[in-house]
């Protein structure tokens, strides 16, 4: 059985193309791999130093995250959250007072108990459901310690009902609905008086949000992606 003449001619051209360019492309890949290997060796010390610095930061936040008070990072985080519109209709009618942008003036700055934040991990649950529908949830879990009380919090960032029905929870919602209430409970167990409890709970929620962001930092490493060495048909 003989090949279709037109296809045989095409196959011959493909072979000619491969013979002409494949060796050069293979050589290019070898040289890129070699260069990346060299760069990765050169960056090792700097990556390790970054990792060490982040470990120190994690240890500090895990011991007492109040070190963030009066920092530019917390101030920027608070401004970012406060720029998000309030989504709950009744909160728009009776808004809780916004926090002072200057965290040095917070009640928390006068507190005698520690607030530690540690061990954030990403969470996924494909077996979620509410009263009416099933869904998948995405978020993170993090441990918070207020004084001598510790709790593992679960914060949802994203809920997927179906490919066309999804909810993203912004930072304000995340802190409002998944952090503040639990923090208030910890404060209650800590014997904090009612008059300052809700204000403190909100301050600690923002502190936790900022700390989680910093705890999620990773060392910067070389990333270089290039197309695999195949001629596109």
């Amino acid at each position, binding site marked *: 059985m003989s090949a279709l003449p037109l296809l045989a001619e095409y196959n011959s051209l493909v072979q000619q193309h491969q013979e002409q360019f494949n060796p050069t492309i293979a050589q290019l890949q070898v040289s890129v791999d070699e260069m990346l290997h060299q760069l990765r060796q050169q960056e090792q010390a700097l990556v390790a130093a970054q990792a060490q610095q982040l470990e120190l930061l994690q240890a500090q936040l895990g011991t007492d995250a109040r070190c963030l008070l009066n920092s530019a990072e917390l101030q920027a985080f608070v401004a970012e959250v406060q720029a998000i519109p309030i*989504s*709950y*209709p*009744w*909160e728009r009618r009776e808004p809780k007072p916004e926090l002072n942008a200057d965290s040095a003036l917070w009640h928390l700055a006068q507190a005698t108990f520690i607030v530690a934040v540690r061990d954030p991990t990403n969470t996924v*649950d494909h*077996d979620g*459901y*509410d*009263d*009416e*529908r*099933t869904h998948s949830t995405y978020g993170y879990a993090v441990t918070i310690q207020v004084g001598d009380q510790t709790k593992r919090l679960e914060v949802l960032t994203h809920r997927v009902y179906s490919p066309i029905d999804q*909810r*993203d*929870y912004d930072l304000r*919602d995340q802190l*409002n*609905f998944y952090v503040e*209430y639990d923090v208030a409970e910890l404060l209650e167990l800590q014997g904090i008086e009612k008059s300052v409890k809700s204000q403190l709970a909100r301050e600690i929620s923002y502190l936790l949000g900022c700390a989680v962001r910093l705890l999620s930092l990773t060392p910067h490493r070389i990333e270089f992606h290039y197309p695999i060495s195949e001629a596109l048909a």
Partner: protein
Amino acid sequence: MNPLWVSLSTYGGGTTAEALAVLWAAGVRQVELAIGVKPSPDTGEVLRHYQHQGMQYRAHHGVVWEEARSFNLAGSFDVGYFERLTDWLVTMDITAYSVHAGSYRSGDSPPAAYDRFLHQVVQLEQLCSDRGIRLGVETMYPAGFGETSQYLLQTATQVEQFLQDLPNIDLVMDMAHLNIWRAETIPEKLSLLALAAERLLEIHVSDNDGYRDSHAGVTDRTWWVPYAAMFPSNVAIVLESRMNRWGVERVRRQVEATQSVFS
């Protein structure tokens, strides 16, 4: 004394077989079938197995049975589905079925949605009463948190109006949903218990933070606990606090702790 039933939604994430194995071992003998468990080919068989052992059932809204689906009684109404469901309830000796008040999307007309809801509840009630099943409609709550739809029956006024509009249909009060109500005082919320007393099919209980229906465990600090003695006696209490993946003993303790509120 109020009998305590446990919703199958308290132990979701696994199959009906997995959930009932734990609830049975924890001493639970009265279960309200609901959303939460994964649909499985053996669901009907498993339910019948435990029934033969002595388990009793009632059913709630998007119950996972030999089918499973979500629906909105202010949206479209699939008569065929509800005929199949109510026929199946009869085969399972289930005589109490409760549904959520319907919901409407922002931009829809609330009065039109309410009229559709009333019309469809009446249709469903006919299917139920023909088969000897009591139907109840559950009190809902104001949606928020990025939701694009609102429930009907989310205020005391709307619940009172519903009781007047459909005098043959019963009410299910969800005390956790009432915790999310904004305009009503505690006495106003509790007054519904007396208003609907003769028509209360069941009372759903769990806890939350007042913002989202998180189905947290009942504790001494749960808002309605100090008023549990005001619940009409003999009305079924349905526990809806989530216990997914808990061990048998922990489930037993949670169920017993909730039961003790009513004894």
